[in-house]
């Protein structure tokens, strides 16, 4: 029995398989990776009744156009995404996010774009067939690790799915992706490398997300953040959400595929509760930072988790 698969007609800008990421490899230089917007990733799997860590296709800005072959499967797209399903009789169904649909042999899924956001997720009942490295199939294009030899998908490639016939009941939820007004942060370990004035500027100014932003990091442009102690430190470990300020004074936020060690001073760290929405900020977006305390950050994460659970529990 041949396997069902998607044949990529147009790959989109950055289409990769992602799951919950890989633990415990920082010490050999392999970052966490995994879906950037974890909540939307989890919702996509839940809507299809998949395991929470099933492989999902993540796309950025423009998504892929793909033809489905030799199967019948339920799928769903989450995020803020415009897409169409071009049926094999040429009829076009306008896609609706957070609502499962069925794909038949010869149907074309055309993911046109994410709107006012970066990442969207396409999940299929029973999942895509991933290759696993350290218990994760997440593609890390920098380390060339994960499915598809660690590369993003290109035209003419095939993405296989785990089961030829995989249908689930029609399910939908109403979910509105909220816009983040300010990014809440905790003090970084080199907070005092920066002058009083530089800190004031950091917390009172607007920064613009630069075009040089990808799964590794988000570069910001705005007033320069002046360092009056030292612009380099001895290289040390990083985690996602760390905001480093190199000598040029422009902050860089570490994202899921970040280098595991770095030598720039850390002015602040984005709180875990704000990470998903941070990753959805498009180049050109304006952001502001707000300093909070650790206890508050821990409580906010608890709230964020409860909120996520409540959304997932709506889906029965």
């Amino acid at each position, binding site marked *: 029995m041949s396997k069902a698969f998607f044949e990529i007609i147009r790959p989109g800008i950055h289409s990769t398989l992602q799951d919950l990421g890989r*633990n*415990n*490899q*920082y*010490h*050999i*230089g*392999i970052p*966490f990776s995994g879906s950037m917007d974890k909540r939307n990733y989890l919702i996509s799997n839940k809507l299809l009744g998949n395991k929470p860590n099933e492989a999902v296709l993540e796309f950025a800005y423009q998504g892929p156009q793909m033809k489905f072959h030799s199967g019948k499967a339920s799928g769903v797209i989450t995020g803020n995404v415009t897409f169409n399903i071009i049926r094999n009789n040429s009829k076009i169904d306008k896609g609706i996010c957070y609502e499962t649909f069925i794909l038949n042999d010869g149907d074309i899924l055309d993911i046109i774009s994410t709107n006012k956001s970066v990442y969207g997720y396409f999940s299929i009942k029973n999942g895509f067939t991933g290759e696993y*490295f*350290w218990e994760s199939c997440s593609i890390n294009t*920098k*380390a*060339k*690790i994960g499915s598809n030899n*660690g590369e993003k998908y290109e035209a003419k490639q095939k993405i296989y799915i785990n089961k030829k016939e995989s249908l689930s009941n029609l399910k939908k939820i109403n979910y509105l992706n909220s816009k983040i007004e300010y990014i809440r942060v*905790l003090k*970084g*370990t080199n907070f005092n490398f920066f002058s009083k004035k530089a800190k004031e500027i950091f917390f009172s100014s607007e920064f613009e997300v630069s075009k040089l932003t990808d799964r590794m990091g988000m570069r910001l442009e705005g007033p320069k953040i002046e360092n009056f102690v030292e612009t380099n430190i*001895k*290289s*040390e*470990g*990083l*985690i996602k*959400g*760390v905001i480093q300020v190199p000598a040029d004074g422009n902050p860089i936020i570490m994202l899921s595929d970040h*280098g*595991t*060690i*770095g030598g720039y001073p*850390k002015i602040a*760290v*984005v*709180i*875990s509760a704000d990470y998903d929405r941070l990753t959805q900020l498009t180049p050109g977006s304006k952001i502001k930072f707000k300093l909070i305390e*650790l206890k508050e*950050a*821990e409580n906010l*994460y608890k709230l964020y*988790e409860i909120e996520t659970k409540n959304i997932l529990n709506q889906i029965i």
Partner: protein
Amino acid sequence: MLKNILNLGDAALYCDFGNEVNRKTNLHVITYFKTLQKLNLKGITNITPSYNKLIISYDLSIIKFQELKEEIKNLKLIQIKNNEEKIVKIPVCLDDEFSLDLNRLSEKLKIEKDKIIQTFLKKEYFCYMTGFIAGMPFLGDTDSKIRLQRLDTPRVKVPKGSVGITEQFCNIYTFESPGGWNIIGNTPIKVFDKFNQKNPAKINPGDRVAFYKINKDEYLKFNE
């Protein structure tokens, strides 16, 4: 010694072992790293040792800063004996086509190329940390006579296998990658192998490393 434990964001511990970079300090870091690897404490998702710091990431839905900090403060450390660590032997070809920056080093340091190579090969190194890119080892310390800053303008592409030196350290580029270290040779050995998932990195934090010279023929014929 562990001097201070701070929070790095809300989901990581920042263990500070002071500002000095030397083997003694790093050995403390590695001791904590190895102890934690062995203990496999609940909630810890990653442990990143570096020269003089250790970062412990955790799952915020399982454990919080204060609780983990107490555990780390009261950790019963395992003993690492220096001579128990294995020596990893790395072949390196130092022919002109691989030693991209040997001329620059020779000019700047005013030392003959052969002498630089000799000095480099003579020492046994110690792996302070691995990372930046997958499997890249940061080794030290190089002889004080052959220390130099990194390139003014980093290369866009440093060839895979390149052996570089800068300041008191040397490293190996496990992939083609941008980089600014002074390249003195190239190893045919796979320093990082993602298909060997149990032991992907040939050199791990705390290992001792020795380089030995091979010629171009040996380089080309090198089979692992």
